[in-house]
């Protein structure tokens, strides 16, 4: 069996990390939301009810990106795995997980619509801004978002593995300066109104495209950084 596949299997030795925990987060977020909707309906609330809980597992992917690296990379070195193989196997596994979960979101969205929002006119999976698009864009939107969050965690973790604390200090200082610079620029040029009216024109499709580009850039950055990281 190919070593890249073996890396994926190694990451899955503890199934809770990649499959169990995100599923548990999703299910509990969903059940809580439905319980709240039910309470709202019981006390006579009307109109469509929205719940943002579907994003809960996505934030876990940020942590997962960090964990997959900091916890497993030093061990993978001891298993005589090259950095390249570790990188490809881990990313492949995550992409498959994200794709499966994205399809699951899409299917649950269909069920949600068909059951009239779980009989409570609630929106958990089929948020209009996303659900109004065709199936492909919906799945891509979830997929890109999950991969992007994973890559953000993974990228930051590679910087840590290579340059340790000094790397973290430099990275977050530069990031802070960059954000501050953009805010200052927008403020001094009174660009905020234009920015927000532009932000409102975003669609799930365009967000997916730009998100995908960002994820690819981060994947490339992670690889270049990991190339010379040490356990």
């Amino acid at each position, binding site marked *: 069996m190919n070593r890249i596949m073996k890396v994926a299997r190694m990451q899955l030795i*503890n199934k809770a990390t990649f499959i169990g925990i995100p599923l548990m987060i999703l299910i509990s977020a969903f059940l809580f939301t439905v319980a709240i909707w039910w309470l709202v309906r019981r006390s006579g609330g009307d109109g469509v009810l929205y719940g943002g809980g579907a994003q809960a597992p996505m934030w876990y992917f940020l942590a997962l990106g960090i964990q997959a690296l900091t916890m497993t990379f030093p061990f993978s*070195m001891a298993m*005589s795995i*090259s950095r390249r193989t570790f990188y490809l196997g881990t990313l492949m596994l995550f992409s498959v997980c994200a794709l499966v979960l994205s399809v699951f979101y899409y299917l649950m969205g269909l069920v949600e619509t068909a059951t009239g929002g779980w009989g409570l006119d609630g929106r958990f999976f089929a948020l209009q801004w996303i659900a109004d698009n065709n199936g492909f864009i919906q799945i891509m939107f979830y997929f890109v978002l999950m991969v992007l969050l994973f890559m953000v965690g993974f990228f930051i973790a590679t910087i840590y593995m290579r340059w340790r604390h000094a790397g973290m200090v430099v990275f977050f200082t530069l990031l802070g300066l960059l954000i501050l610079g953009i805010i200052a620029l927008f403020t001094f040029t009174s660009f905020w109104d234009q920015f927000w009216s532009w932000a409102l024109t975003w669609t799930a499709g365009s967000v997916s495209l730009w998100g995908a580009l960002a994820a690819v850039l981060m994947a490339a950055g992670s690889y270049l950084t990991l190339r010379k990281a040490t356990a």
Partner: protein
Amino acid sequence: MTRSTAIATRELSKTYKDVRALDNVTLDLEPNRIYGLLGRNGAGKTTLMSILTGQNYPDQGTAHIFGHEPFEHDLILSRICFIRESQKYPDDFKVHQAFKAAAMFFENWDEQLAQDLVEAFALPTKRRIKKLSRGQLSAVGVIIGMASRAEITFFDEPYLGLDAVARQIFYDRLVEDFAEYPRTIVLSSHLIDEVANLLEHVIVIDKGRIVVDSDAEELRGAAVTVTGDAKRVQEFIGAADVLHRDSLGALASVTIKAKLSADQREQAKLMGLDLSPVSLQQLVVRSALSTNEGTDERTEARA
């Protein structure tokens, strides 16, 4: 004899900030022998092994494993096993899960051997690695190293925290398994006397430099300590290479690097001098100390 080398390094150097971890290391290790990589803490043992296993990379020089650079070379890496002394395992891994991973990546993995060793070390395999004691953690590394049966296996201070019984089990099983499945073994250690009998070849590293690189057989009896009247000792040793000198009043005890002939021994006896053999450990300690002038001076001052 032109046997292919398992490990070959040429002028390998590595610097961490202001510490020269490796300084012009040139070595050739033949396949299917047991090597001892000896030296003090921080001498560069782990750095050298990390570079040889592609876990780290040199600033200068080359390291070849079976004729290829190991860095990012999966085919070569799959023939090597190196569990570092401070090896990190995934936080959520239990002992048996680490073995399961090792069984996937090391093609020669022997599950039976792994199970035997688990029993011998009384290792709780269902416990999380995070919760293990230092000795049990070392046992995990030892078991992966042994059961992987990799063509080149590095043991990095494998005995840390292990009790005397467990250490003996490790040494015995290593020799036993080596006899049946010869491979290149590099045993890094600072408990030199304990491993001395296992080693076929000894490499001593100090401050990143190789100070000894010779067959264990050659080293046994390569040095001798001469004790007796200071003047007579001086007369006897002449211009021999002095590794260590102790004196107390008119008495002196001097360790020299020399193989004495029967005649010389007879002469020593006639001069009323006492000759005592030097253990590998003493030889290594003396060699390491004598490369360090600062330490030498302190030794002199104390003596």
